[in-house]
Each structure stands twice: as structure tokens, then as C-alpha cells.
């Protein structure tokens, strides 16, 4: 049922023979430590290979600088289906399970040993979770908890529920105010409120934009020429450069769109040189030049549609 790679078992059996004179507990401890070390090494290798992907995923998912650690581990599940235990304690408890299996199957224990292992199992029953994904990609080894049903349907059901709960944890980190609520219903409530509030914000902001620019006519030159440099001026570091924008404003009324755009580029370059890159400014000079090109050849579209 529970399969192990060949090397640990052979090495540990030889060491078991050497340690015949040691007490039972010492033997157990040695095996446990060896297993723990092996598993840690494997996990580290896998984790290192996944770290870049995870960081990208995390940054794209949260968009927020502070990312708590459980989120990273949860996102590893989203990305690569590698499950890592959430704490060393849990990992140790899992290895109690692994070690127990190994002992019972391989060494042919006496009864006293079995009773001692049983007590250990009882102690760790509360913290023990099912053993998942032992380095073999084709099978998911699942062990039922003590006192749980063992048929495949309920195991699959439990696996599905665990998946859902992991994703709910990710959502918990994303939605503000979800940490205080426990349980599915409360968290769903928070999520619903948050999504509703975001959607209402979008509506309100689009209404505001429609109000604020009555003479806008959504011509890209107007949007671009007026708002983007002002946006740059809006950033906290750029407070001093408001005067230049006003100057530009007076100039813009008499100039053609291309001319205005050139001035905008100069403005943005000047402003960016002043204070350097900021985390909030996603409008840097290269992006603005791209928008420039957009406005340039966008004027040809009406001919295509007519």
C-alpha cells in the first residue's frame, strides 16, 4: 500500500542490524531522523525549482507587497501540485505515519513495539494528516485517518474538499478582512461583499470619468495629452512639477496633437529624470511612447469602418 524508494529501506535495514543492541526507542529515533532528512532534501530540491514560478504567481495574484508565508505554499499547490506540509510539526507527524508503516511491514515487530507505536499514533492522531504525494507522480497515496471511512469514494471526496479548502485559504489572504472569519459561510460572505464592492467601484469610477470629461469625446489625443502628464504630476514625488504641467496646458490649446504629444514626451522624460522610477508609476516614458504610437495610427481606423 505504502511504497518507499528502495534505497532508504535497504540502508535503514542494514543500520537496523547494526543497532540491534540499542533500545527500541533509539532505533525508532534514528530511522525517523533519516527519513526526515531524506524527505527534506527531496522537498528542498523541488521547492527550489519552483520558487521562481511561485514568486511570479504570487506577485500576480496578490499584487500586494506583503505576502505571508502560507500563501506561498498554497500557491505552490495551485501551480505545480506539489504539496508541502504547512509546518515542521505536521511533517514530523506525517513521518510518524511513514515510519510506522515501514516498521510494521519491513521489520516484523513484536507485540510490545506495536503497542508503543499505537500510543504514538494516538498522540499524533490529532495533528496527523493523510500522507500525500510520495514522490511518485502516478499515484496519490492517501491514508485514511484513524476512525475514518476507507472506501475510495470518501477518500476522493476528502481529497476534493482539501483542494477546495486550500484555495479558500488563498482567497483568505487576498480578500481583506477575511482573517477574522472562520468557516466557509463567513468567508464566502466576505468574498461576495468584496466582489460586489469592486464591481460597484468600477461602475462609480466609469460614471465619474464620464462626468469629469464632458468635452472629452474619448479622443485619445485629449485623454493622453491632458491626463497622463497630470497623472505623473499626481504622484507624491512629483508635486513640484505641477507648474510645468500648467504651462503645457496653455501651450496645448493652440498646438496640433502631434506637437502636444512631443511636449508630453519631453515632460515625462524630464519628470522621470527628476525623481527616478517609483513603484506606483506604471506609466514610464517607454509606455507613454507606446501610447503615442497608438494615438498616431489610431486616426486611420475611421476609414476602415466607413
Amino acid at each position, binding site marked *: 500500500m505504502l511504497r518507499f524508494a528502495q534505497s532508504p529501506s535497504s540502508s535503514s535495514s542494514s543500520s537496523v542490524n547494526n543497532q540491534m543492541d540499542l533500545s527500541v526507542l533509539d532505533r525508532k529515533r534514528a530511522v525517523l531522523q533519516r527519513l526526515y532528512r531524506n524527505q527534506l532534501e527531496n522537498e528542498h530540491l523541488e521547492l527550489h525549482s519552483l520558487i521562481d514560478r511561485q514568486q*511570479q504567481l504570487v*506577485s*500576480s*495574484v*496578490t*499584487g500586494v507587497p506583503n505576502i505571508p508565508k502560507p500563501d506561498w505554499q498554497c500557491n505552490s499547490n495551485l501551480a505545480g501540485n506539489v504539496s508541502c506540509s504547512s509546518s515542521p510539526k505536521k511533517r514530523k507527524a506525517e513521518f510518524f505515519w511513514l515510519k510506522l508503516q515501514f516498521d510494521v511491514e519491513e521489520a516484523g515487530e513484536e507485540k510490545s513495539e506495536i503497542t508503543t507505536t499505537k500510543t504514538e499514533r494516538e498522540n499524533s492522531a490529532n495533528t496527523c494528516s493523510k500522507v500525500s504525494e510520495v514522490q511518485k507522480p502516478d499515484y496519490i497515496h492517501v491514508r485514511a485517518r484513524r476512525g475514518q471511512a476507507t472506501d475510495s469514494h470518501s477518500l476522493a471526496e476528502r481529497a*476534493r474538499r482539501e483542494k*477546495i479548502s486550500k*484555495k*479558500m485559504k*488563498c*482567497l483568505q489572504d*487576498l*480578500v481583506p478582512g477575511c482573517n477574522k472569519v472562520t*468557516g466557509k*459561510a463567513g468567508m*464566502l*460572505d466576505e*468574498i*461576495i461583499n468584496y*466582489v*460586489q464592492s*469592486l*464591481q460597484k*467601484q*468600477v461602475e462609480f*469610477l*466609469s*460614471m*465619474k*470619468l*464620464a462626468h*469629469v*470629461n464632458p468635452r*472629452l*469625446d*474619448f*479622443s*485619445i489625443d485629449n*485623454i*493622453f495629452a*491632458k*491626463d*497622463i502628464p*497630470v*497623472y505623473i*504630476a*499626481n504622484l507624491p514625488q512629483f508635486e513640484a512639477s505641477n507648474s510645468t*504641467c500648467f504651462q503645457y*496646458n496653455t501651450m496645448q490649446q493652440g498646438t496640433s496633437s502631434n506637437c502636444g504629444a512631443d511636449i508630453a514626451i519631453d515632460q515625462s522624460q524630464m519628470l522621470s529624470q527628476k525623481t527616478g522610477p517609483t*513603484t506606483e508609476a*506604471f*506609466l514610464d516614458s517607454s*509606455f507613454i511612447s*507606446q*501610447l503615442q504610437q*497608438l494615438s498616431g495610427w*489610431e486616426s486611420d*481606423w475611421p476609414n476602415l*469602418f466607413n
Partner: protein
Amino acid sequence: MCNSTMLKQEFLKKWIKGLHIYNNLNKCITISDRKKAIKLSADVAIASTRKATTHWSKALMDDVVSRDGNNIILVQQILGGGQNAEKNNSGLITCSKRILRKSHNNIIACRKARRRVVPRCVKSSSIARKLVKNKTRMLKSLVPGGQKMDGNCLIKETLDYIVSLRVQVDVMRRLANAAERFDP
């Protein structure tokens, strides 16, 4: 961090492009027209940033296209003409068939159960399950294309949808603030 910045840039570019196209198609005179145009192009832009990899973005595009036939031009332009803006429901269909089958079985079971006399015992677990069911139904109504998703898929889609909504709100708010400051 870099990823979210790129996402915001992409969204802003597509949004402005969409606004321009829409303006060429339909002249917007009243405030409500303008608001509709802004929101429409914003929705299409944020959905196109996902490049049809998620269900909600596909459902949003389909919704936009079905609302008004002219919008298909807008959608095609923003998508770059590489992908077709028509209903591309293959993934959704497989997802939904499973759900339809399950829900059909549920309906039949419910009908059978209703005929039997159901004893009235108020269990806390059943109340909790009912609550969760109601809330899941509400969430499905909020997320575009949510009706055809099961629980696992719904949570994944909600996660992605929340991220995109945040990007959208952020960019729109900054633009609105800038415009307001410039023209109070």
C-alpha cells in the same frame, strides 16, 4: 510586482484603444452613453488581458458580444484579430455538461424526496449546508460565467477575477483622480 505593473499597462493600453474604437463607431453624447462606453471598453480590456485562458474572461467577452452585435468589431480589434471573438465554449461545454447532469439527478432526487414525508428536524449541519449553498449561488451570479462552474472551478475563477477587478479599479481610480485634479 513587475507582473502587476505589466498587467496595469496592458489594461490601460487596451482600454484607451477600445475607447477610441468605440468612439469611432458610436457617437456618445449623453453622460450615460459615455459611461456605458467607458465601462464596456474597460470590461473588454480587462477580459482580454487574460487572453481567454479563464472561464470568466470568455464569458465576459461573450456577454459583451451578445449585448450588441457591433461590439464584435471592438472585441476583435482589442484581441488583435488573432483569436476569434465568437463563442468559444468548448471548455465551458464539457464543464457544464457535467454540472447539468449532476443538477438533473439532483432535481429528480428532490422530486422523489418531496413525495416522501420528510421529518422536520432542524440540524445545525443542514442549516450550515443550506447557508453555504445560498452563498455559493450568489457568488455564481456575481462572477461572469459562474453558473456553469462547480465549486472548485468557481473558487479558482473567483481568485483570478478578484485580481483583475483590483487592477481595473486601480487604473480607473488613478485616471479619474488625474482628470479631476486637472479639471476640477
